[in-house]
């Protein structure tokens, strides 16, 4: 696929609301997802990201608003008439069918002739690296294998959009990381739109082209992983995507002269000796190291500043060892960070 200059919109949500009684699960969401994009819906549990996915799949009808798939209004179209398929969180494989029958299900109900069904099933099994597993039952598979079968079953119909509802949630860390790479590779190879729901910010940052951060049924911010990490616009996004120090009110005034809230990432702060001279382009504050946690690749410090609040600081362990770090507890330090690294936020929580 050549990169189109103006990518077409695969999924468009306009002022979509879904209320369950008093609960506003999805509250006035506007969202454009482009064709061929790997798009993540990121948020804590109960933030509305899964309901949003179910609205796109057709399992839920919006209370109000418009949902479009490739320009066509689908808000009241049943799931079986939508050109999207879903990988479920619990995989939802049919236990009474073999792996082959599970994958062929979408073709069977559409009355695709048997030889073609069999060909496409083995193609799909090839793709998810489970060749020759047609006759196994889902109960004979491991969690990771079930996950792959669920993926193959959802892709066999050649949907234009694939929806994934926390598909890696049940896998252990190693398998999870391996599946992240594989999913991304499959998406790039077949070139369709993936909409991926997750509560794991690291997973969302690694895999997505763009992502939307959900909170209380609303979208807080939409952007590329870099934009969200480097330029969060709200305190919630700054706190949820990665770790950060949020400084506001009096504390902020003491450092910057303005009470405006800002976010500073722990890895952007440098720990220096107390007598380090400061320049105009940095903020600085003196403090005492209260705690130091050695984490192998890096060390996390908790520094109590002299103006009264704590800062988390992360430093790479370039030369220091675990033993060196133990001695830093209680020592006086000066913290410095570039003025450009501090992000002013529009709102906080």
């Amino acid at each position, binding site marked *: 696929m050549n990169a189109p200059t103006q990518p077409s919109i695969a999924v468009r949500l306009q002022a979509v609301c879904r209320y369950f009684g008093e609960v506003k699960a999805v509250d006035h969401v506007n969202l454009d997802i482009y064709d061929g994009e790997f798009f993540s819906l990121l948020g804590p549990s109960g933030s509305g990201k899964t309901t949003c996915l179910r609205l796109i*799949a*057709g*399992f839920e009808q919006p209370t109000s608003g418009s949902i479009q798939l490739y320009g066509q209004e689908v808000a009241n179209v*049943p*799931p*079986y008439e939508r050109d*999207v*398929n*879903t990988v*479920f*969180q*619990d995989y*939802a*494989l*049919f236990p*009474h069918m073999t792996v082959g029958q599970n994958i062929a*299900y*979408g073709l*069977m*109900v*559409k009355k695709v002739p048997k030889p073609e069904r069999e060909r496409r099933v083995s193609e799909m099994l090839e793709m998810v690296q489970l060749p020759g597993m047609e006759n196994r039952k889902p109960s004979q598979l491991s969690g990771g294998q079930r996950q792959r079968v669920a993926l193959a*079953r*959802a892709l066999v*119909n050649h949907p234009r959009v694939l929806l994934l509802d926390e598909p890696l949630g049940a896998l252990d860390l190693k398998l999870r990381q391996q599946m992240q790479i594989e999913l991304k590779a499959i998406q790039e190879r077949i070139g369709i739109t993936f909409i991926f729901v997750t509560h794991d910010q690291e997973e969302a940052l690694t895999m997505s082209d763009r992502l939307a951060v959900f909170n209380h049924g609303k979208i807080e911010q939409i952007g590329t992983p870099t934009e969200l990490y480097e330029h969060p616009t709200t305190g919630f996004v700054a706190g949820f995507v990665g770790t950060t120090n949020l400084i506001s009110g009096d504390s902020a005034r003491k450092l910057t002269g303005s009470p405006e809230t800002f976010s500073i990432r722990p890895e952007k702060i440098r720990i220096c000796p107390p007598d380090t001279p400061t320049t105009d382009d940095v903020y600085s504050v003196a403090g005492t190291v209260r705690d130091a946690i050695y984490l192998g690749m890096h060390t996390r410090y908790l520094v109590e500043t002299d103006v009264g609040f704590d800062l988390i600081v992360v430093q790479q362990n370039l030369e220091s060892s675990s033993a060196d770090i133990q001695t830093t507890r209680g020592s006086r330090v000066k913290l410095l960070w570039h003025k450009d690294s501090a992000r002013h936020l529009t709102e906080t929580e």
Partner: protein
Amino acid sequence: MKPSNPTGRASLGLKIAVGLVLLFLHFPLLIIILYAFTTEEASFRFPPPGLTTRWVGELVNRADFWNALSLSLAVAAVATTLAIVLGTLLAGAIYRGNFFGRDALTLLVILPIALPGIVTGISLRSAISLTDMGFTFWTIVIGHTTFCIVTVYNNVIARLRRTARSQMEASMDLGASTFQTFRYVVLPNIATALLAGGMLAFALSFDEVIVTTFTAGQQQTLPIWILSQLTRPRDRPVTNVAALFVIAATFIPILIAYRFTQKTGE
């Protein structure tokens, strides 16, 4: 908590108690089986003076027995079929929907089995008398269906609740219509529950006396025929043979139903 019995074996006293209870429950059945083959006609003497299969032959030649048996089988078959269809539809509605009166409906369905049969019977009789339909095969079927629905409904709803809703969503998501989803995903999931519920329903209908007494006209189902036989002491052994049929006809389906629910309960 410290187990009082570390070996997990029952004590001798408990074993004897269990044996006595089982004997108490099943001794009468053994009597029936034994006296179905006695050479004596009217009085019961123990031990029976001799054993014979003459009564089986005599029963086989009784037209009224065959009429009663075939009526019972027909009623049970039709009532069970109706119960399977209605019970499944009802379970589906209660499982899926959250509509007004849902809880009331659940209660109303369970009620016929909780209500004394005599109440169901008398109310059905009064209701049927109000119409011109008369007391026929179908009034017996209606009476039996009221309590047969419950066994099917209970089995199916329990199974539906154990089936992941996402399976049905996955089916719809993959392009299956509502009917196809029922045919390929829901039905295989509830098949054994239907079988178990249906067999229980069949057994309940087959030996039902109270409701049948009120809803039958001149026809006799097998249990009612047996009851009427009691007034003819000379037919005792023949009646005992008929009772053997009933034991077999109700016991086998219940046994099979039990096996099915055990297997899928794992």
